[in-house]
């Protein structure tokens, strides 16, 4: 009892320490805005006597006292752009991308851990609860090695900035000075909480202590998310600056600098993106382990792990296009030219590639689910309908990837009789594309519903009515989405943009209502047979690897698009890029660079996985065999 009390005290102290760490940066930062305002103001007084210079915020249009220096007007030379015998921008691109990959991974995995640990805590089936707990632990173990690499890559990134872009980095640092140390302290807090969370796992595995441990994961994720928000404020500022005047002089309000026009859409998009990416990477890890497994037990475990990671990743992938849509809408609202450069101009072809990648993600997901139905007895009844799902998916996909401006030779252009194809050109505009992606997502939801009821037969008295209702609901959803896509051609553009709301609402209705109804219908359902974990086809595992690779490629692509939309500006309309590399790369070069980044990430993450497996080898055999059930049972796993 005494020991238990001691443990309780210890765990509460640890939790308090974490909260303390969370609050530390805020407490330390309290005086900094004041310092940030007063110190340069003093300079202003020195310069202009008693006169206080005022400036107008470029975005908020408010007046503020000028407390910063103007953005430097750089010139090409060793002072502003020192360099090696290589394109500095490409080096920075590489360092940035790798840091982002690992940063995303280590931010996403703790969120998974939190969800999976919570599932373990609330699951009544003790064997399953233990497996969830073990899975969460496995995840955090991988994350820990990746965490060190993230920090190393962060250091490399800062050194690259300081070495190759000193004037630009100096300017950004001067603007963000009031929060620079908060950012650094957040890292300390993140590391501290992560270590306490990881090393406290075994000591806090039951009862009240487990709940304390779970609370720690919540705090860990709050810190991680705040950290990401701060990092996002830098890129938000570079794209859509605020809190400075036309010359780029800081006006003393750090909140304006952080809370730029694109900050919130970026935050949401990145949270969802990180989660989908994290799920993809863990699923690929599980797929790799599945393919390399030598025993049925291992295959069963990694099959299950891959499924859980894929399901978590995809659950965040589904709302991702909508978050992206919001981001683009805000981009257009901020600067029309920026929007046109992205969607209709210079970078439009990259968006076609992005659409292709999104399509691959959804196609891989659906394919995995159909393969997964192969390990369920009773799911055969759905197999013959899969060809119709393929048809729907492909129609949506083809519309989604059809370019507005087609790549063609002048001879083809002449034969076509104009820049736009009279049939396919119609698929190239937003109205059709909204329809296309919503058809794809709705079909994915339908595949999920089939998977969830694959080996079950509903026993509720209203099962027949429920099935008919679900069928009609999905049919109406398709009709509504397609009808709105066509109707979009006949109404003003501002109304058409608004049409995406009912389309998205239709898709989300399918997601929530159909999942809920299906769950109710399948409560106490008759099982046709167990899910035979480990009996899935190897093709499904390649689909998971494809899913993860597509995530990684798309992430790099979108990062490149977001960054290059600033064209020849370091900070949009404030600080011009006067280096020799202020031009936009060709699509081919960008694609090669993205592929190189993806390849490097996967090679390095394989190293991380290998390190993780070295640690796993030290675990005594009994501990592994101690997991009851060996082959996981389906129970409430989906």
């Amino acid at each position, binding site marked *: 009892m005494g020991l238990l009390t001691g443990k309780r005290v210890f765990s509460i102290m640890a939790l308090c320490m974490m909260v303390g760490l969370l609050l530390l940066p805020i407490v330390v930062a309290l005086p900094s805005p004041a310092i940030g305002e007063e110190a340069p103001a003093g300079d202003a007084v020195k310069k202009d006597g008693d006169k206080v210079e005022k400036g107008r915020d470029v975005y908020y249009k408010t007046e503020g006292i000028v407390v910063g220096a103007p953005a430097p007007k750089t010139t090409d030379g060793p002072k502003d752009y020192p360099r090696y015998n290589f394109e500095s921008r490409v080096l920075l691109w590489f360092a940035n991308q790798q840091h982002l990959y690992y940063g995303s991974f280590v931010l996403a995995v703790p969120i998974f851990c939190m969800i999976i640990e919570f599932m373990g805590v609330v699951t009544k089936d003790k064997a399953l609860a233990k497996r969830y707990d073990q899975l969460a632990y496995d995840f955090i173990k991988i994350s820990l090695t990746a965490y060190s690499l993230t920090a190393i890559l962060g250091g490399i990134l800062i050194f690259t900035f300081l070495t190759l872009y000193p004037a630009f980095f100096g300017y950004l640092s001067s603007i963000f000075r009031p929060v620079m140390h908060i950012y650094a302290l957040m890292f300390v807090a993140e590391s501290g909480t992560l270590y306490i969370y990881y090393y406290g796992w075994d000591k806090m595995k039951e009862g009240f202590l487990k709940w304390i441990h779970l609370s720690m994961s919540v705090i860990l994720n709050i810190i991680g998310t705040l950290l990401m928000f701060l990092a996002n404020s830098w890129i938000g500022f570079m794209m859509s600056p605020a809190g400075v005047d036309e010359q780029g002089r800081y006006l003393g309000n750090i909140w304006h600098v952080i809370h730029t026009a694109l900050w919130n859409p970026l935050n949401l998009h990145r949270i969802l993106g990180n989660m989908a990416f994290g799920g993809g990477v863990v699923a690929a890890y599980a797929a790799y382990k599945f393919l390399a497994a030598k025993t049925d037990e291992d295959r069963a475990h990694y099959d299950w792990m891959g499924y859980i990671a894929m399901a978590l990743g995809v659950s965040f992938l589904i709302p991702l296009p909508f978050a992206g849509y919001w981001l683009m809408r805000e981009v257009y609202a901020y600067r029309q030219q920026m929007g*046109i450069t992205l969607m*209709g101009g*210079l970078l439009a072809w990259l968006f076609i590639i992005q659409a292709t990648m999104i399509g691959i993600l959804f*196609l891989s997901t659906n394919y995995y689910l159909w393969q997964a139905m192969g390990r369920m007895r009773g799911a055969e009844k759905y*197999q013959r309908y899969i060809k*119709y799902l*393929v048809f729907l998916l492909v129609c949506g996909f083809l519309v989604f990837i059809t370019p507005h401006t087609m790549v063609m030779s002048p001879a083809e252009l002449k034969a076509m009789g104009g820049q736009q194809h009279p049939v396919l050109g*119609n698929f190239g505009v937003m109205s059709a594309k909204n329809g296309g992606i919503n058809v794809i997502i709705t079909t994915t939801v339908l595949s999920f519903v089939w998977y969830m009821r694959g080996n079950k037969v509903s026993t509720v008295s209203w099962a027949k009515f429920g099935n008919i209702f679900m069928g009609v609901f999905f049919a109406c959803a398709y009709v509504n989405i397609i009808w709105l896509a066509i109707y979009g051609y006949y109404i003003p553009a501002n109304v058409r943009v608004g049409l995406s709301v009912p389309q998205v609402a239709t898709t989300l209705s399918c997601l929530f209502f159909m999942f809920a109804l299906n769950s109710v219908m399948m409560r106490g359902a008759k099982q046709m047979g167990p899910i035979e974990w480990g009996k899935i086809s190897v093709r499904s595992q390649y689909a998971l690897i494809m899913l993860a690779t597509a995530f990684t490629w798309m992430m790099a692509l979108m990062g490149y698009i977001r960054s290059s939309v600033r064209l020849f500006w370091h900070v949009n309309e404030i600080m011009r890029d006067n280096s020799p590399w202020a031009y936009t790369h060709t699509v081919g070069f960008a694609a090669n660079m993205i592929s190189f980044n993806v390849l490097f990430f996967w090679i390095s993450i394989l190293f991380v996985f290998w390190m993780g497996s070295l640690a796993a080898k030290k675990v005594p055999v009994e501990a592994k065999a101690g997991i009851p059930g060996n082959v996981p049972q389906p129970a409430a796993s989906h």
Partner: protein
Amino acid sequence: MKALMSLGALIGVAGLVLLGGMIFDVIPSTTVRLVEGYMPMQMLFEFACFVAGFAGLSYMMSAVGMPFPRFWQGIGFWAFVLLYLKYRVYPPIPFSVRAMYGTVTLVAVFMWISANEEDWKKFKQPIMNVLDAQTGMNKLLRYAYLVLLPILIGGFSYNAMKPKSEEPIELRTVHPAPPASTKVHGKTYTLQTSQNPYRVNPEGKYDQEFSNANIVEQGMGRLMKPNANPWDDKNTGYLKYVREGGEIFFQNCHFCHGDNLNGRGLHAFAFNPIPANFTDPGTIAQLQETFIFWRVSKGGIGLPNEGFPWASVMPPWEQHLTVDEIWKVILFEYWHTGYYPRTWD
């Protein structure tokens, strides 16, 4: 169910006969016309009919004890899509797009034939048979593939490496991003905020809803309001400005952009690409009026770097028209096509 499948089979056979006729030029590809205005949906609908038709055909053949092997179903369907895109859809689809569609369809066929283990085995069986070469025929086939495949790949490589005299492919940006502002006749216009001064209601205030209600019905060519005829001299305000814009259009623009505003004017086919087709939903319907104002004023010569290879011979109309005339002609273009200028509210 059986009746439904029989109907499907009938559609499938009829469709295949039609497509075969089009490929061998026995039946003109315009026999079943793609109706302007409905073409994109018509194509998808036709495609859906074919899928239903093939499903019915497959069902019927199985029912009469002559199942069509899954291997040939997969290969056949993919070939069908490639032929459909090449011979059915007109005007011809550029190769790059057909390649994209063909790849996606190939992936789709793979997803379909490997969706479950049984189908996948059925699909693989003929390939495995040839590789195992247990019969004389399969042995022969294996040797044939051994010789043919390298020749085929060599042929492709040769074709790819052979220097060509064709003009290179262009990745043209049709709508380059506009500048933040543009200077026309000494006055600076901010593109984000400027408005067409002639898009006004009877009170003389800027009113897009009013003008939207008085245009030609899109794709139909009839007036939204019968009495809102700009060619009626009695009409004033917005409709009068449309009329004036129309006069300017027919004096200056229709030679290239055509009297239907579809880019097929008298001189259009002297250019490649032909002038912009305003009736296409991808041109003025996608853009703010100020974007059109900038493009008309500055012409092809004023395109930014992003607009490379600057394949536009439109003159900078600011040298020939007044600012008011440019605004009026834009007003007419939207009126005539039935499109609404893009807004961001």
